[in-house]
């Protein structure tokens, strides 16, 4: 009886091992059939697409003869809070322009080059406006400050590039609650299912074997007593 149990346990373990090993062997069990999306974009014109060309990126060139915007990036007192991006707006005559609204942009590549609005400010008496900026990604950033014009002053812009070393916390895709736990549960249940199938097999084959084996052993029932 002990040996029987041992063999059964061994069979159970072997089957489980087979299943675990099978994860990688069976078709599609882990690796999903995902065609390469890059080939779509490179090789095939997609039907149903708009034929109108994408909006061309705005040229980042200051219109001539207007006011001037000088843009500078400095590290703040607390670098982890971001960089200080400040713009100085001056008139063609070189005079500081106060009460001017300046919008700050970071040039990003999202469906083509785009200017991402990162903040806006109003200039003070020295013509300075500044924002603090903590980029989402490191590396070289091109910044643009735009002054829309004020009174007789026409619009202008200033650009600068800077190397971002400090960045905002990267986006993390939250694991669903109990993710690890719920991955383990199926294995436990799987063991249970195997045990049940083993029991069914045991009652069927065990009984069949028992009935066949003891067919000629003793007297008929009813002849006892």
């Amino acid at each position: 009886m002990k040996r029987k149990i041992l063999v059964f346990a061994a069979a159970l373990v072997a089957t489980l091992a087979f299943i675990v090993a099978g994860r990688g062997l069976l078709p599609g069990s882990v690796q999903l059939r995902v065609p390469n999306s890059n080939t779509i974009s490179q090789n095939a014109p997609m039907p149903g697409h708009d034929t109108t060309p994408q909006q061309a990126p705005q040229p980042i060139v200051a219109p001539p003869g207007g006011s001037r915007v000088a843009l500078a990036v400095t590290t703040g007192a607390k670098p982890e809070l971001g960089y200080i991006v400040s713009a100085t707006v001056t008139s063609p005559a070189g005079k500081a322009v106060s009460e001017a609204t300046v919008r700050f942009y970071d040039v990003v590549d999202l469906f083509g080059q785009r200017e991402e609005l990162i903040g806006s400010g109003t200039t003070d008496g020295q013509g300075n406006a500044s924002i603090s900026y903590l980029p989402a990604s490191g590396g070289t950033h091109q910044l643009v400050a735009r002054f829309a014009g004020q009174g007789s002053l026409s619009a202008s812009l200033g650009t600068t590039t800077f190397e971002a070393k400090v960045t905002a916390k990267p986006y993390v895709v939250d694991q669903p609650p109990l993710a690890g736990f719920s991955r383990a549960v199926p294995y436990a249940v799987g063991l249970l299912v195997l045990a049940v199938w083993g029991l069914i097999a045991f009652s069927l084959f065990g009984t069949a074997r028992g009935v066949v084996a003891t067919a000629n052993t003793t007297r008929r029932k009813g002849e006892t007593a």
Partner: protein
Amino acid sequence: MAGQLTRRQLIGTLGGVGGAALAAGFVPVAFPEAVAAEPQTKQRQWAMVIDLRKCDGCKKCTEACQTTHHLPQTFEWIKVFEMKDKTGAQYFMPRPCMQCENAPCLRVCPVAATFRESDGVVLVDQERCIGCRMCMAACPYGARYFNYTDPPVAQNPFGHPTPEFPVPQIKGTVGKCMFCVHRTADGELPACVQACGMKALYIGDLVEDVATNGDQTVRLSTFIQENDAFRYKEELGTGPRVYYIAGHGQLLDY
């Protein structure tokens, strides 16, 4: 009977257990997560912001979606709901697929035909889908559509529909909005975003923290914070990737 172990008994036991395993078809697959075919140059995490202050309910987005994906009229992968609040104020709410980070449809799919791309978009492999419609029962946003009839005839450059370009739809399977990954991979805006005349739809990347409606480009986190964006049925814990900015179609000065 006890003690002795016959060969027959051994085979019986082994066969029983092995057979049981095969019959039960027990091939464990963890919840299907991202397995990208090739690393992209930039790892995006797509998200959408819908500015209800701007939406006027024209349904251009729905039409563009149906054109791009060759869908029948009844398939509104992005559906515009006409809403009324208690004060009688009317507004419109477009509903694409929320591309949930903890997607109920993905978890209940028995064949992992619904899976998540590395960029967070939940796709459907219609060549694997068995059409059990469990995902439709599970989706709290009604974003899934079952192809009861033959879809409109359409050409596909691959000769067959793929998860990234499910055109034409396959009868007997389920389809849904997939953030136009066939277009975004091309560097094109999703069809609905491009078609929106009110520029109410923003497609964005959570990694680079940027979103655009084709005109304006904004810092995604700042934009949703400053405008008190909410996520529809967030309390269900599905982690939707679509943010709404509440509003009534009012005119904005920008």
